[in-house]
C-alpha cells in the first residue's frame, strides 16, 4: 500500500504571525513548523502502516511550500515516514487553495499508484479545511474526511465523522482521500533513533516543471481571489478583575452583567 501524507509548513501560531505588504502571509520571516494538525495525519498513516501485518506499506510525506518547508518533511521523516517530496518553485508563492490543491494533485499523480492520501483537518494558518475535498475532486477519488476514528479492512475504510448535527460513519474503498481530526489520537514524538534514521531517508525536491503544472496557473497573480486589505485587530485590553471574598465575586459579576444589559 502506498500512502501519501500531505503536510504543510506553517508560521508558528505562538509567534507573531502577520501579513506582508502584498497581503500574503509572511511564511519566511516568522519561525515555522509542521502544522500541528498534520502531525495527526502523519500519526494515522504510521499507525496504518504498523497495523498492516505482512503487507508492504510505504509512507511518503508531501509538502508544497517555500525552501523552509522541507523542515515539515523532516519532522514527518523523524516521526517515521519513509520518504519525502517537497514541491518548491518561486512561482508557487501566494497560491490559494485552488492552486495548492492543483499542485498537490499533480504531485500525487506523479508519485503514482497511490492507495491513500492522508491530510490534516485544516492548516493552522489559513485553516480553510478545503484542500482534502479539493484533492478528492481533482483526483476523482472518494472523499472520507474529518475522521476521528479510522478503521481499515483491506481496501475498505470506515471513519467516524462528528458532524454539526450528527455523528456519522462514512465508508469507501481505496484509493481514497482521508482527512483526520485532532481527536484521532495523539501524535508521537520523534525518538532519538527516529531523528538519526531520518537523516538517511530520501527527500526529493520537485519543481512545477517536474510535475507538469503551468507556472502561470499558480501563485499570487493567478489566484482566483484577491485580498483587498488586512487590518490588525486592536489587542484586547484587560478590564476589571476582582477577587472573590465571601460572595463578593458573584455580586460584582452580576452587577457587571446587568450594567451591560445581559440580565
Amino acid at each position, binding site marked *: 500500500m502506498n500512502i501519501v501524507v500531505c503536510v504543510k509548513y506553517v508560521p508558528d*501560531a505562538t509567534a507573531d*504571525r502577520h501579513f506582508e505588504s502584498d497581503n500574503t502571509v509572511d511564511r519566511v520571516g516568522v519561525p515555522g513548523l509542521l502544522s500541528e494538525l498534520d502531525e495527526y495525519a502523519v500519526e494515522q498513516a504510521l499507525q496504518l502502516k504498523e497495523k498492516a501485518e505482512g503487507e508492504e506499506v510505504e509512507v511518503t510525506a508531501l509538502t508544497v511550500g517555500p525552501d523552509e518547508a522541507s523542515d515539515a518533511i523532516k519532522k514527518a521523516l523523524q516521526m517515521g515516514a519513509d520518504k519525502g517530496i517537497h514541491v518548491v518553485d518561486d512561482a508557487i508563492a501566494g497560491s490559494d487553495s485552488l492552486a495548492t490543491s492543483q499542485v498537490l494533485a499533480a504531485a500525487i499523480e506523479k508519485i503514482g499508484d497511490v492507495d491513500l492520501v492522508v491530510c490534516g483537518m485544516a492548516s493552522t494558518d489559513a485553516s480553510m479545511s478545503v484542500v482534502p475535498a479539493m484533492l478528492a475532486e481533482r483526483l476523482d477519488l472518494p472523499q472520507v474526511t474529518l475522521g476521528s476514528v479510522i478503521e481499515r479492512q483491506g481496501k475498505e475504510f470506515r471513519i467516524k465523522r*462528528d458532524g454539526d448535527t450528527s455523528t456519522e460513519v462514512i*465508508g469507501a474503498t481505496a484509493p481514497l482521500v482521508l482527512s483526520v481530526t485532532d481527536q484521532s489520537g495523539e501524535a508521537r514524538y520523534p525518538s532519538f533513533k527516529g531523528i538519526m534514521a531520518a537523516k538517511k531517508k530520501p527527500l526529493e525536491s520537485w519543481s512545477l516543471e517536474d510535475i507538469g503544472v503551468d507556472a502561470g496557473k499558480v501563485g499570487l497573480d493567478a489566484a*482566483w481571489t484577491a485580498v483587498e*486589505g488586512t487590518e490588525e485587530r486592536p489587542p484586547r485590553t484587560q478590564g476589571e478583575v476582582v477577587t472573590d471574598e465571601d460572595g463578593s*465575586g458573584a*455580586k460584582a459579576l452580576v452587577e457587571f452583567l446587568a450594567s451591560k444589559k445581559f440580565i
Partner: protein
Amino acid sequence: MSEVLVLVDHVDGKVRKPTYELLTIAGRLGEPSAVFIGGAEAADGVVEAVKKYGAEKVYVVDDAEIKGYLVAPKAEVLQQLAEKLGDSGPAAILIPSSAEGKEIAGRLAIKLSSGLITDAVDVQAGDGGPVTTQSVFAGNYTVQAKVTAGTPIITVKPNSAAPEESEGAGAKEEFAATISDSAKKAKIIASQPRAASGRPELTEAAIVVSGGRGTGGKFEPVEDFADSLGAAVGASRAAVDSGWKPHAFQVGQTGKVVSPQLYVANGISGAIQHRAGMQTSKTIVAVNKDEEAPIFELVDFGVVGDLHTVLPAATEEITKRKG
C-alpha cells in the same frame, strides 16, 4: 438583477437560522434564490420559511437519491443549477460555513473554475462583486477579500448578519440533478443525530457560557448559570478530552469558533487554541481561581475565585432579579 444562490441549511426540513442570515446577505448582492436539497415532503414548509426572508425562488432538489452519500453529490447539484442559469448568473453562491458546507464549496469551486472564500463574517456588495470580511490568525487580523474569477463562492459563518424579514415571491421550482457514479463513492453507513439540548446552538447563541478543566467534570454550575442567562454551553478541549462533554461543545481552533455578544469562560486557562475560538466575542468574562491565568488578559470583567462557589451564587442572584 442576477440570482444569488443560497444553500439552505436544515435538519430534516427544519430550516436553521444561518439560512435566514444568508438570504439577508443575498438580498444585498442580487435576487435571493434558496436551494433546498432534502426530502420532497418537507419542501412546502421550507418554501414558506425562506420566502419570509426574501427568497424570490426556491429550487427544490429531492435528495432521495443522494442522501446516503457524503458532500460530493451536493456539489454536483449546485454546479448543475449554476450552469443552468447560464451566463447571466448566479451573481454569487452562498453556503453555510459548516464543515460540510466548506467541503461542498471547495469541490464546487473546482467544478465551476471559480474563486472561493471561506468563513466570511461579513459580505457587502462592492463595485466588482461581493466584498467579504474574514477574521484570521486566531482573530488577530481582519481581511477584506473578493473573488476575481468565475462565480463568487462564499461560505458564511453563523451570526454574520441579522436576519431581516422581507416577503419574497417564494416561487417553487423542482430541479432534477444528474448525480454521477463517482460522486457516490463515499457512503454514509450510519448516522446518529445529536440529541437536542434545549439550549441555543453554540455558534448561533448571543451568550455562550463555557467550562474547562477547572470544573473538575462537574458541569452543573456552568449549565445552571448558562440557563439563567438563556445561553449556549461550550467547553474547552481539556473538558472534551476528559469525556465531560461531546466534541460538538468544543470551542476553539479545532472546535467551534464563536463570536457571541457575551462569552463567559469558567475554569479555562485561555490557551491560544481556545482563544482562537472565542476572542472576537463582543464582551468576555472569566471566572478562574488563578489570578495569573492568561484568560484574564482578554477579559472585560474577571473574577478570581472558585467557579463552584461563584457561579451558583451568581445564578441565584440572577434568578432573583429576573423574578
